[in-house]
């Protein structure tokens, strides 16, 4: 409006008659919009509603003219200096100029205001992107977002509600302007606008009378705008929650621009929630992997070092778990100067649960092996210790437990469902030590025991789990127990560590790069 001001100033200087422009809003009285000097103008309430006319004021005559094309705006001319009458001819000349310049000026102001509004919205979206980009936990960001959003839209009351799947409720992660206790809204609440928006996934503007839900009462006053928070991916869309705004400061209804803005913010919140969940899942996964590595180390530490019994026996033992932790294990016991106990076990399944049963079995076996010299009594006692745990987890343990007595030259053993236990005699003959009972935990009856001759320093005890014999190559062929026994027989005169390496070498050659499906354990013992 600077240009118009300059024109009016030039006119006043030339004619000594002041000119002013008045503008009135719908309900407000007219106010002075443009004047060169405000000291010598009409009082607003004296302006006539007529198109054009002349007024006699205390200071002299004034010409008023209604500006066309504008709702309620007037031009006034006079009173002139020296008590001169303003010339109607001058007013007629000036009016179209003022009219045109006023219209242009107001249009520019309107455009500027709109641009400022858009700028605020863009600025809000940018701010929210920044807030969401900075934080992993949405709950932390929710309050800040809500404050920014409600300020921009001009709402005193606002809330972000997220869907909780287990309870099927919308619970508040942030709220402003809510004095009462925050409440959760069931998604099937038919009186709730927020629940309806969540179900239909469509934004809604509702009068106070439409929301009849007692759960929603704290969030709504006057008109309410509720927008769904949706996450959309290539496979479809998922409703995650609702943004609610109500109690507008101006008392005006929500505009189309407000709806678009809130919908855009809700979309950003949806993306942030999903990102936050993915980040959390990834962090959980990383933590789990670290815990699994730790568990693997712990599990390997539970297994005794084969060298710990080197005075009594030559032992080679190795467990290769299919996952970080597994259910295969072996155990070694020095029972007396002449007796050595050896155990191999395979807990059904693998992973954490199998590893826990394995640890429990090993620790209980350590106690019972020192008390019971007879393998069947030892396994009966062991079953007593782990029975309940096996029953509740529906797991079981295939277990071989042998006691080699060098003085008596015999091997006593109990075998609950372990399929691969052999003794390779000095004559090169390989005898299977068959299972005498089903796996530990499957039946309540105490396990049986059997005995066979043992040739000190000549007999070789060969124990392995089905992770070795059932291993399959890329073609789907089984490695089979015969390949294990062939390798053992071929290298039987070598130290046990060499035999062990040859078996695993043969297995590796057979499998190639095929990943492990099950834990692999091999124990070789000469005593």
């Amino acid at each position, binding site marked *: 409006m600077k240009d118009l001001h300059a024109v009016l100033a030039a006119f006043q200087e030339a004619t000594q008659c002041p000119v002013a422009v008045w503008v009135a809003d719908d309900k407000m009285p007219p106010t002075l919009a443009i004047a060169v000097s405000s000291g010598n103008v009409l009082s607003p309430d004296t302006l006539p509603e007529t198109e054009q006319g002349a007024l006699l004021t205390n200071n002299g005559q004034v010409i008023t003219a209604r500006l066309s094309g504008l709702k309620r705006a007037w031009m006034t001319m006079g009173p002139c200096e020296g008590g001169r009458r303003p010339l109607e001819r001058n007013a007629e000349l000036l009016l179209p100029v003022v009219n045109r310049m006023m219209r242009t000026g107001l249009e520019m102001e309107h455009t500027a205001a709109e641009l400022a509004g858009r700028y605020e919205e863009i600025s809000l979206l940018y701010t929210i992107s920044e807030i969401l980009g900075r934080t992993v936990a949405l709950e932390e960001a929710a309050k800040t977002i809500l404050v920014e959003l409600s300020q921009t839209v001009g709402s005193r009351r606002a809330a972000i509600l997220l869907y909780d799947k287990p309870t099927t409720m919308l619970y508040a992660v942030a709220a402003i302007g809510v004095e009462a206790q925050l409440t959760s809204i069931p998604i099937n609440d038919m009186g709730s606008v927020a629940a309806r928006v969540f179900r239909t996934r469509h934004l809604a503007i509702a009068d106070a009378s439409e929301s009849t839900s007692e759960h929603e009462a704290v969030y709504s006053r006057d008109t309410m705008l509720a927008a769904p928070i949706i996450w959309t991916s290539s496979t479809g869309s998922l409703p995650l929650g609702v943004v609610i705004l109500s109690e507008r400061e101006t008392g005006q209804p929500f505009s189309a621009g407000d709806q678009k803005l809130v919908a855009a913010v809700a979309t950003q919140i949806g993306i942030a929630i999903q990102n936050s969940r993915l980040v959390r899942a990834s962090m959980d996964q990383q933590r789990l992997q670290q815990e699994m590595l730790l568990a693997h180390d712990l599990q390997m530490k539970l297994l005794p070092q084969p060298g710990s019994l080197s005075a009594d026996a030559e032992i080679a033992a190795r467990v290769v778990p299919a996952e970080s932790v597994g259910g295969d294990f072996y155990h070694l016991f020095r029972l007396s100067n002449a007796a050595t106990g050896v155990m191999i076990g*395979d807990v*059904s*399944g693998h992973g954490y649960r199998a590893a826990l049963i394995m640890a429990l079995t090993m620790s209980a076996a350590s106690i019972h092996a020192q008390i019971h010299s007879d393998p069947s009594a030892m396994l009966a006692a062991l079953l007593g210790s782990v029975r309940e745990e096996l029953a509740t987890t*529906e*797991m*079981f343990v*295939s277990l071989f437990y042998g006691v080699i007595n060098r003085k008596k030259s015999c091997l006593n053993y109990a075998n*609950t*469902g*372990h*399929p*691969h236990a052999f003794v390779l005699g000095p004559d090169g003959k390989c005898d299977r030590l*068959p*299972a*005498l*009972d*089903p*796996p530990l935990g*499957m*039946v309540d009856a105490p396990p049986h025991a059997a005995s066979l001759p043992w040739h000190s320093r000549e007999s070789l005890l060969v124990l392995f789990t*089905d992770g070795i014999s059932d291993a399959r190559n890329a073609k789907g062929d*089984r490695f089979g127990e015969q390949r294990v026994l062939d390798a053992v027989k071929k290298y039987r005169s070598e130290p046990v560590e060499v035999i062990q390496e040859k078996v695993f070498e043969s297995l590796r050659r057979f499998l190639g790069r095929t990943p492990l499906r*099950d834990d692999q354990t091999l124990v070789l013992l000469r005593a």
Partner: protein
Amino acid sequence: MSFTIRKQGEIVVVDVEGQLIVGNRQELKQKVLDELEKGEKRFLIDFTQTGYIDSSGLGVLVSLSKKIREQGGELRLANLNDDLKTLFELTKLDTLFQISDSRERALESF
């Protein structure tokens, strides 16, 4: 991998296609328990189309057998392939189940 359940007379017959392993054992268990819940007592699991059972699968068979026995019923098995038969023998699981070489013989044996 899938399970087909059909009734033959008084006997619920379950066909296991593919493998019975850690990944699908719960499905088999639930299907059989659902039938048990309905009051069925006699169950036959036919392994004609089954290539492999892992230790978790064996565990489910034993668990189901126990649960069915507790309800006064019985679980029998039929048509184990040679590998599975050897597995059952080597682990002494053959002492826990009545195992038949054909479905007909298994159905008659109830």
